[in-house]
């Protein structure tokens, strides 16, 4: 079966989800409750996405002794520390990847 109808459907559906608020409230004020909550909700979503990934890595490390999970968690910890100090995504990435590489080498040598 051709994948194109499915891709078209997903594309249209995704655009609809993205633009529904714009179509409804593009030119008028959002309801006060929505406006109040959206400023807090969006960062909470990002925090939840990150936490979901950390929980999964922890589960892998504890349950199956997941390969690379420990190094990955250390990298996230180092990245968080750098993000607190610098508020920079670039430095966070650099420090996290360096920590991952360093711990992979150390654990590989052990």
């Amino acid at each position: 079966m051709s994948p194109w109808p499915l891709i078209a459907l997903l594309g249209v559906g995704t655009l609809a989800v993205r633009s529904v608020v714009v179509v409804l409230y593009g030119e008028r004020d959002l309801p006060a409750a929505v406006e109040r909550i959206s400023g807090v909700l969006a960062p909470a979503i990002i925090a939840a996405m990150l936490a979901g990934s950390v929980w999964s890595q922890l589960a892998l490390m504890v349950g199956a002794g997941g390969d690379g999970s420990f190094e990955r968690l250390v990298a996230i910890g180092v990245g968080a520390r750098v993000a607190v100090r610098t508020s920079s995504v670039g430095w966070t990435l650099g420090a996290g990847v360096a920590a991952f590489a360093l711990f992979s080498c150390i654990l590989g040598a052990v």
Partner: protein
Amino acid sequence: MLLQRFSPRAEASSTGPSRSHVVAGVRAMLPFLAGVSPFGVAIGASVAASGFDPLAGWSTSWAIYSGTPQMMTLQMVDSGASSVAIFAAVMAVNLRLAVYAAALVPDWRGASRRWQIFAAYLITDPTYVVARRHATIVAEPAARRAHYVGSALALWCGWLLACAGGLLVGGRLTDLVPPGLFLDLVLVGMVVPMVRRPPVRRAGAIAAALVLPGLVLPAGVGVVVAAVCGAVAALHRSGRASSVGCREERT
């Protein structure tokens, strides 16, 4: 206001929204692009490794234009899931994009409806974060929109190229460091500066704790449910704290 007056961006804003705002948007997106590109490469590599038609697989990068739902689509197609199930899962994961749109739509007022829908199509996690950060230093809506276009188009072009690159070179680039790690680090870099405000910090902490039981829900839904609970609880608490503060002031 002071920041606006003295920053290089503010200098440009006095001449109205211009190319410099677009260029500043592109520059602001580059660190995020470096972080999400490996994930795009991994998606391209997954398309190459699966039996998916390469052009159709790559087309998800502009049709869906969001990493996790793209990966999810490929995996679900590979495992023989029905179109209805795939559609439902992708829409559930993309629910958060409507929340981002709700936060950004006040900046877009005054632009044409066509522009607003175009801007909404380009919403992703990094574009939302870059737009909010820029909004803290520049007040002029037209300048904010120009900056948004620059940052969002930079990410869009980079994402399509990364997916195409992954399709061409396979998994060789992502063998050294897991692409999921780059994504996690980008999320860390995005969320840490945001949680400095107490209500946001509370909402983030509650959402992060609640996402664990939320993992039993269908993909993506758990994250949204946990975040909604966190946001409502944090706002309720800060509302109560401010009303207690008012009462104490009165006494």
